[in-house]
């Protein structure tokens, strides 16, 4: 039987799943890890839920817990070496043919994001979410000025990586 608190949590959680999927998309590169991270974030949110006072919006609170789980609490799986025979060349060919497409450009940008450090990924994600420097500073625990400098550096690093992937 589900407790009242569980029911309240699930009611809050359900409409906000997309946000967690977006974080998982940035921090993992395959479906299995995506699901594992999604589950860990859900567990951490549930464990932290009694501490949710409702002072902030649920989605803002959720964002903070989810990001902390992705950066710090999630035990990253060991990277598997990709063998030459496992590379799908047909996909690469299609991507090459669509070179000028926006969709191709976006794929390339996501590939570049995966090469950033965990902190830079968080910064870029908060930029995409239109978070203010004050909010970014609060979430990460750094000053607003520091957040601004780190953000500029992360953006420049991303642009460089886009050109090399």
């Amino acid at each position, binding site marked *: 039987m*589900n407790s009242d608190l*569980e029911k309240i*949590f*699930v009611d809050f*959680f*359900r409409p906000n*799943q*997309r946000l967690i*999927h*977006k974080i998982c998309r940035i921090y993992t590169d395959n479906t299995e890890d995506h699901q*594992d991270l999604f*589950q*860990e974030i*859900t*567990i*951490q*949110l*549930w*464990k*932290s839920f009694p*501490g*949710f006072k409702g002072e902030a919006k649920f989605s803002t*609170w959720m964002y*903070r*817990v989810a*990001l*902390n*789980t992705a*950066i*710090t*609490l*999630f*035990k*990253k799986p060991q990277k598997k070496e990709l063998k030459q025979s496992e590379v799908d060349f047909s996909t690469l060919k299609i991507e090459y043919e669509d070179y000028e497409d*926006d969709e191709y*450009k*976006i794929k390339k*940008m996501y590939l570049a994001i995966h090469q950033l*450090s*965990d*902190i830079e990924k*968080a910064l870029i994600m908060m*930029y*995409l*979410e*239109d978070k203010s420097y004050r909010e970014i500073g*609060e*979430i*990460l*625990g*750094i000053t607003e*000025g*520091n957040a601004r*400098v*780190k953000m500029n*550096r992360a*953006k420049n690093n*991303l*642009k460089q990586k*886009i050109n090399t992937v």
Partner: protein
Amino acid sequence: MDDLELLKKDWNKDSDKFTTYSEQEIYKMIQQNSTSAARLLLLIGLTEMLIWTVYGYFYHRFPVERTVLFLVFFVLVIYLYQRMKAESSSIVLMKTILNLRYAILGYAGISLLLIIVDNILHFNEYTRDFMAGVHDGGSGNPYRTTHPDTFVPEFGNYAVFGIVLFAVLCLLYLIYKKTYGKVLANLRKNYKELSKAE
């Protein structure tokens, strides 16, 4: 359009690629145990503390001190783990986990120091024990047949015992690197990057 603006547009569009979990699936998920790095660290840490304590009792070395030490650190580690909040700022959360590790390391460090001091104070006696053990092992005698006092260690014996002791310490270091190293390497890197003032 600027690359990043294009990305932002894609990021904020409603994607139907993501799985939407049902109520029942979410209920099922929250019943699962966390596999977080912090929980793993706690489990490895408590196991380690227990092994050090059992070792102390097994060899009848500092049982009272060890009990007090174990209890103090056990309470400290559990307290630090309880204080860890996923909704803290990232840097505070990282610092709390690192403090948890320092507490466990502190216990292991004191335990190791006690062993080193004990070995230095009783170096002569332990070298004789070591020689008796090697003699019994080499002759196929049952455990502790030869009395250690029948040996008078020379420089070479001390040196061999010292080398074996050093090798054991190196092995301990390797075990630490394999267990904690993997869990904490990423955390340390992220903490360093985030706490660096620009």
